[in-house]
């Protein structure tokens, strides 16, 4: 519990995490404003915004680990925090579990606020034209929040392996916003539909590739990817020199 409290305290005081919260709220809400004013509402109204807004969750997951390894020149006071972290919590398994739990808590919080902001905006702007918030919509919102949490953990796991946030951040953020490499890949190779992001998106969007995957199955496939990645990250993290 102490380890979890320390990790939550770290997240709360890291400016990069505030940036992640800002991005996770402003990006999808901003897109929701634009689409509500210009487009006609469809089955993915609100949800396609959240598919892009996930970049906030990715930044959060990557920053949680990346900040441990930030280095600077000899003349600066800032230095690799991982040495302090591991002298405070020497059990690496315990540390990684605490970090994972802290990221889950923070990302779930971010996702809930972002979902409320996006759908609040849509209802404010579209009024009665807005899609109904029925049971199915709520289930999809749950799916979107799960997707955000799993994407944050994907970023966390990759960053444990690279010990540097830049590469995982670039790959995951670009893939979820600018150029959806995995989606393009799935056009030619059906197997690519089982990649974590494409499988997980079934939980809340009507994304279609040549392979049909049910929402729950998609979520389980993504969760399996994340579990395998975290186990690999844990194995590497507990064995290598800090």
């Amino acid at each position, binding site marked *: 519990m102490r380890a979890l409290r320390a990790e939550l305290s770290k997240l709360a*005081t890291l400016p990069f995490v505030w940036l992640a919260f800002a991005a996770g709220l402003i990006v999808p809400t901003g897109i929701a404003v634009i689409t509500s004013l210009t487009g006609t509402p469809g089955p993915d109204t609100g949800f396609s915004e959240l598919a892009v807004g996930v970049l906030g969750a990715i930044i959060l997951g990557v920053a949680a680990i990346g900040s441990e390894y930030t280095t600077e020149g000899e003349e600066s006071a800032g230095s*690799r925090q991982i040495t*302090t972290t591991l*002298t405070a919590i*020497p059990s690496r398994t315990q540390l990684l579990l605490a970090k994972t739990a802290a990221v889950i808590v923070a990302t779930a919080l971010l996702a809930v606020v972002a979902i409320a902001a996006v759908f609040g905006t849509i209802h404010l702007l579209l009024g009665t034209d807005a899609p109904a918030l029925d049971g199915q919509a709520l289930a999809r919102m749950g799916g979107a929040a799960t997707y955000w949490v799993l994407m944050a953990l994907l970023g966390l796991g990759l960053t444990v392996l690279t010990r540097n946030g830049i590469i995982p951040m670039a790959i995951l953020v670009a893939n979820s916003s600018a150029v959806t490499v995995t989606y393009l890949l799935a056009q030619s190779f059906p197997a690519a539909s089982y990649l974590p992001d494409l499988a997980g998106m079934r939980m809340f969007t009507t994304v279609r590739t040549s392979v049909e995957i049910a929402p729950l199955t998609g979520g389980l496939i993504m969760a399996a990817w994340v579990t395998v990645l975290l186990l690999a990250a844990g194995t590497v993290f507990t064995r290598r020199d800090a």
Partner: protein
Amino acid sequence: MLTFEHLTKTRGSRTILTDITFKARPGRVTGFLGPNGAGKSSTLRILLGLDRPTSGQALVDGQRFASLRDPLRSIGALLDGSGAHRSRTGRAHLRWVARSAGVDNTRVEEVLELVGIADAGNKRVATYSLGMGRRLGLAAALLAEPAALVLDEPINGLDPEGIRWIRTFLREQAQAGRTVLLSSHLMGELAETVDDVVIIRDGRIVADGTLAEVTSDHKNLEDAFFALTADRGQR
């Protein structure tokens, strides 16, 4: 008591440490001295469970550091720099360390005062000078009032006033019964502070004893150090 037993560490084909064996005892300041790159930091990192030895072990009161239930109460450590992320404030850094040890925020304020950076507590670590960063790292080490202090090059980056302060401070810590192990490549600064001396050269211990024993027939610790660590081929 900190015990190093036959530590050996290789990285690839390079041998960094060979059969490192020595003790740091309670109530005494042990100076772990050697030129840059001799293996001081590597030895301390193994003690703290940051790096793995190839063989041998380092123990804290007979236990491996990673298996301690309350690590920050056993050892307060200061390694390179401040050990703090640049964009967090000094106070926020100490607070998360405090959380991990179950220490409350009043103690955070105490250590900020103690090391003399209370005024800079709300500033980001990126704005700190090297010396302030070292003081912040020391503050984190002292948070849980540990039984032992392990300090890697503690006087690096400190101004003369800071060096004077830390010497007095470490003597007081030893007098209070704590184990103090500090590494340094600066001999002159430390001769008055240490009780025991361990000298490392090229990853091997070349001298281990009380200050008087190691200095023995040399004029002073510095002379003894250079006699022990000089490249024999050159001199």
